[in-house]
């Protein structure tokens, strides 16, 4: 009978999962590469893809991310979802000490606001100035007397840390002072549901986990007049930073490892009621791994979302906190968009019945209703 095809899911689900398993682990695998070796190769060759999964999943674990990436056949949102679900089962032992990003060993350090900055401009590994030609990196000319050395000579000897561009502007009073105090408001959004208006910390945590494509599009809109933004990158930094904890039973701080982070400090249009009060404003982006696109987009959005705090009128979508924060999470978004694949025949049936009833008596309401609108 025909209805059997409509219902009856257990067998179909089993068969569907079998099809995936056969693709993931083919029985007649000619190369016979062990799965853990493939994962290693993924992390080696698709580092930026792994970084993106870790950032959006908000879990720094390269092995888990690679495992999820493989299981998802390269679908990064599916991989993020798998890592998020895994993350939800982990116990939390301690909060880490705040990361000391200015002490990090930068692999990249770029300022667009000044020609040179303390610590030096450091181009590092970037696609920025490459020509997007297939095979481009196979046929590079041998580097000789490179005009742009990978590190500035004077940096090599000195281990002292340099103050950032923002600190220098702050000393001159040209930029608003940073308010980085840890408060009750800085509650982990994955533990306590955030409401609106959110604190800046909750907002930044949401953006750091947000879908890169969504942030990119929203940030782009601020550059095209939807939410005023006149941004300059003060510092864009990518590098490894120590993660430190202070276990109460030890009473002192220990380093438990290093993670790669990308940070963007953005200078933005000035603000203030009087000439003396006028200062530049800040936007901030911080992302797991190497992901400059997302760090910059995040900094632009952070600044746009500070509109109410800075007394600006909220006019553009990118300034609308409830709109941005409610729609930026790709695990939430993909679930709800894709849930349309689930059977909806019961509610659709009620819609069909309603429409049929309306069309069967088209004039009933207009003639019967006293107002006759």
């Amino acid at each position, binding site marked *: 009978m025909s209805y059997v095809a409509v219902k009856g899911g257990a067998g179909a*689900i089993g068969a569907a999962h079998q099809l995936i398993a056969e693709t993931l682990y083919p029985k007649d695998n000619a190369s016979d590469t062990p799965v853990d070796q493939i994962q290693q190769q993924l992390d080696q060759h698709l580092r930026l893809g792994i970084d993106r999964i870790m950032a959006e999943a908000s879990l720094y674990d390269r092995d888990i991310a690679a495992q999820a990436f493989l299981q998802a056949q390269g679908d990064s949102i599916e991989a993020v979802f798998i890592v998020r679900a895994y993350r939800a089962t982990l116990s939390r032992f301690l909060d880490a000490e705040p990361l000391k990003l200015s002490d990090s060993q930068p692999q990249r350090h770029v300022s667009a606001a000044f020609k040179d900055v303390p610590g030096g401009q450091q181009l590092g590994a970037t696609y920025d100035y490459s020509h997007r030609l297939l095979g481009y990196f196979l046929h590079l000319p041998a580097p000789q007397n490179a005009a742009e050395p990978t590190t500035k000579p004077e940096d090599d000897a000195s281990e002292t840390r340099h103050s950032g561009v923002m600190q220098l502007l702050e000393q001159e009073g040209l930029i608003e002072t940073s308010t980085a105090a840890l408060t009750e408001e800085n509650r982990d959004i994955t533990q306590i549901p955030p409401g609106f208006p959110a604190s800046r910390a909750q907002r930044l945590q949401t953006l750091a986990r947000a879908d890169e494509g969504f942030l990119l599009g929203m940030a782009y809109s601020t550059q095209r007049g939807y939410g005023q933004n006149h941004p300059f990158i003060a510092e864009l930094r990518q590098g490894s930073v120590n993660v430190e904890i202070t276990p109460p039973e030890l009473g002192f701080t220990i380093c438990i490892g290093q993670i790669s982070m990308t940070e963007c400090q953005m200078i933005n249009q000035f603000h203030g009621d009087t000439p003396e009060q006028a200062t530049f404003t800040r936007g901030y982006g911080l992302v797991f791994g190497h992901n400059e696109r997302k760090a910059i987009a995040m900094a632009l959005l952070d600044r746009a979302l500070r509109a109410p705090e800075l007394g600006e009128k909220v006019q553009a979508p990118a300034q609308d906190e409830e709109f941005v924060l409610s729609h930026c999470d790709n695990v*939430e978004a993909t679930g709800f968009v*894709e849930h349309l694949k689930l059977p909806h*025949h*019961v*509610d659709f049936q009620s819609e*069909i019945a309603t429409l049929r009833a*309306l069309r069967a008596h088209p004039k009933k309401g207009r003639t019967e209703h006293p107002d006759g609108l």
Partner: protein
Amino acid sequence: MDYNFAYLDEQSKRAIRRSLLKAVAIPGHQLPFASREMPLPYGWGTGGIQLTAAIIGKNDVLKVIDQGADDTTNAVSIRQFFARVTGVATTTKTVKASIIQTRHRIPETPLQEGQIMVYQVPMPEPLFKLEPRRTETRILHALGDYSLMYLQLYDHITRYGRVAIGYDFPVMVHDRYLMSPSPIPAFDVPKMHMSPALQIFGAGREKQLYAVPPYSRVVPLAFDDYPFAPLQAQAPCAICGSQHSYKDEIILDDKGTRQYICSDTDYCEQHRC
């Protein structure tokens, strides 16, 4: 891999349990809860799954339905999930279940005292199509100002001659809160009123939960001259002959021949005997 009983850790369960008790104490009021990422997608029942995970114990008997049926794909998937992480007994029989997790239907068989209905809810805010901002609707709920919804019903009546809402029909709970009954057909709404079962609602992606205690007033919005009139099924069930159940419409061939069968598969089976 070994998971905790019912997947959620005990602390997450406790947070949901505290919210559930408050939800029961304030019928129809939406409460935020710290929704966790479950290994099933948002929009596919994570709210209902988390509520079930927070209440379920070893002695429970679980029934899971989607579109009224126990063997639709997502119902199978959720039932398998709980079988795997709790090991509790499952059933397809409404009368034997202590917990019934559902998407889009209320069983035809009347519910009993002691049973708990767990609804999967996509959009918990009944006003969301009229006012998408939570910050605004929260104020409207505080004021008990539901004129937006009444205006929409009025607009339907002037335009179409009737209230043209087939599913997710807005209801007033305990004469105080406007509530989404979840996308069940309007046909099912009267079953909620003074139900002997506890009804709890979970929206995982939207991070909200709410409840209707047993024996509570659940009244669909209506006007005196346009009373609530849910549409009845067009034909008796082709399998069991029931005149009173909600039906799925099945297209049999290319000519568009239709057949109507019970959406509630358990009811249909009981009725045949």
